């Protein structure tokens, strides 16, 4: 029978190897979709939340969680998707936002932006200019919009405030 002496914190640390398949610089913790991890020695229970209802990455992420834990000899894993409280981009860690930016994607604007009207990126992730404009409300994935910098002229993705 499967038995583990690993603690919850150790398992969370292993799970930092699991990346968002669509934005491979972000781990599921950076993104804020890893909600809870419980371990009782015989069983590991994990809760994750989708960013968007139709996010096609959710099933791959579940497979990746299982295979990553399996590499460390861990089994008997239960993964549950939880919808409430709904994931928000505010749950992305500061470290996650920095990683995102150095990857060339503008990080989501600050808390409450959805309620206060239109959110937009702070600046161009390439040259830091604030002289930017939206090209399209939708980008390469559900969680991104497309912008353009009017100074360096580079188009860039913006991880929407959600």
């Amino acid at each position, binding site marked *: 029978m499967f038995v583990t002496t690993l603690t919850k914190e150790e398992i969370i640390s292993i799970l930092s190897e699991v990346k968002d398949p669509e934005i491979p610089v972000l781990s599921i913790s950076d993104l804020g979709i890893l909600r809870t991890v419980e371990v009782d020695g015989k069983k590991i229970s994990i809760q994750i939340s989708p960013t968007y209802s*139709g996010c096609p990455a959710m099933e791959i992420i579940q497979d990746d969680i299982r295979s990553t834990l399996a590499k460390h000899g861990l089994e008997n894993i239960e993964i549950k998707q939880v919808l409430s409280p*709904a994931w928000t981009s505010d749950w992305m860690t500061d470290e996650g936002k920095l990683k995102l930016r150095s990857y060339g994607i503008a990080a989501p604007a600050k808390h409450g932006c959805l309620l206060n009207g239109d959110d937009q990126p702070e600046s161009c992730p390439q040259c830091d200019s604030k002289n930017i404009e939206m090209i*399209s409300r939708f980008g390469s*994935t559900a969680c991104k919009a497309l912008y353009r910098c009017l100074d360096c002229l580079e188009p860039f993705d913006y991880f929407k405030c959600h």
Partner: protein
Amino acid sequence: MDLLSTYIIHQADNALVLGHRDSEWAGHGPILEQDIALSNIALDLVGQARNFYQLAAERLNELTPGQHVTEDDLAYLRDANEFRNFILVEQVNGDWAKTILRQFYFSTYQFLLYNRLLESTIPEIAAISEKSIKEARYHVKWSSEWVLRLGDGTEESRTRMLDALQTLNPWISELFMPSDFEYEAAGSGAGILPELIKDDWYFQVNKLFETSTLPKLSSEKKPMQILSGKKGVHSEHLGFLLAEMQFLQRAYPGSNW
């Protein structure tokens, strides 16, 4: 099927059918960015539909021990007369103006509905609404910008928008005509009567129509609608849509990716 399950399936069917219609634009959008926009909206809607179908399947299986219905059975193995979606969402894409107006009408409805369903006595319905309302809000935003742009745009775009109003307006009244499953859901606190969001809906739509220089809608007009998707009496379009969407599961039952 019990009426509360039907209420849940009604939400799923609306999202799935419009999601499928939107997905038909993939590869045909007027420009790449808007092609992608509709694919993303379709993805959100199909995701919402899945959440509601899963909930309905769980409920149905609890009510009938020994039965094992899945979300796929509900989406792929029911016939047109078993679908409970609005006639509005099954209407063909037509041109860009019709697609935009259909989206704006439905997303505005969905946003107002989810806002009320946050208080549902069924926690799963409240949770799905909490998740989905942010998506619906964004769909309203996107489609509103297009209604404005087309309505107050060129002579051509305006003509097309007026034509879209002619085509789609007959299907609005159904949104607010209460059905047996809505009475049931409202009675138990799981859902609401559509009457509750009717004034808000007309207000939101007419506010945008005013800035878009489009003729305002009247909520006073007597409903002319004979068909009712909520009763399973659909227009001719749904059968064709399902024939395409369900083909694979019908031809190769149980096939998997």
